[in-house]
């Protein structure tokens, strides 16, 4: 009996033919391109025992869009 349904295309399965360096490169490129969906999945979890982040009231002083008053953000960490 042959399994008929396939989730992935032949192109996707071509990862097997890549060198380690090529896989690393396409993997990172895919992640960069996938950033376009960040707004859609901002509150979601892929694994674990939590389903969604609790909503934060945009009008509260603890809005994620800004810092609490008087609190300065540290300089962003840059790892190369």
């Amino acid at each position, binding site marked *: *009996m042959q*399994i008929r*349904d*396939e*989730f*992935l295309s032949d192109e*996707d*399965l071509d*990862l*097997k033919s*890549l060198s380690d360096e090529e*896989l*690393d490169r*396409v*993997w*990172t490129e*895919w*992640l*960069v391109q*996938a*950033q376009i*969906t*960040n707004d859609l*999945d901002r509150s979601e*979890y*892929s*694994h*674990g*025992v*939590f*389903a969604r*982040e*609790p*909503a*934060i*009231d945009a009008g*509260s*002083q*603890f809005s*994620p869009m800004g*810092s*609490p008053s008087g*609190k*300065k*953000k*540290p300089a*962003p*960490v840059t*790892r190369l």
Partner: protein
Amino acid sequence: MNIYLRLTQEFNDGRLRAILSGGQAVVLHRLALMSKDGDWILLEDDETMGHILSVLESFGATYRFGAPLDIRWMSGGWSAHFEFTYQGIRVRTDFITRPPRLTADRIERLWRDKAGQPAPFLDVSDLIETKKTNREKDYAVIGELARLFREYPQEVAEIKRQRPILASIPDGLHALEAALDAERRAMIHANEDRLSPYFAASEAWSRIWPDISGKIEGRPLSFAHAAVVDAALGILPFAVQGELT
């Protein structure tokens, strides 16, 4: 180097502490690029928690809503979640020490088998077990992972013994499809039942999380971790009723 591979190596610097799971393990099996987040199974000890937090702090990570990365909660099956930005990529790191559907013996064997590997990731059979979630898309991945079993005939023979529904193969394709659909729905419902106590137990924690989030915003992770632990004590129980696996 890909950030998730780099993180796995740094998490395991000097000692095996973290095994890559989830969608990024699927990549390392060279099956598909399908997930934006990283998932790791961690060794359940204080040194591991401290080392992981230290690595995350070096990347400027912040806590997402979840349990503290502390063995008192992790041993109860909770998960801890963090996020940072690296070269334009939103990096999310999710951690557990008690992967669902893997027995204690299997987890012990996992740590033994992966010893010495700089960037260990879950084997196919263990990865399949962890992907029996309540998300439909994970079952498609299970199907593709199962194709890799063509290389492991002994494992296939063992699976046939454990999967009674495979006895419906002689009844034809439609009967087998119906049995597989029913099995998948049963696994989805089982995972929903597993998660339900955690949702209930974290309700109070979720109500105070916006305040905590505000207090730790912009602060180093070491400060945030202490604040999160302090706030979670007495609010988020260490364990919930029901099975962990």
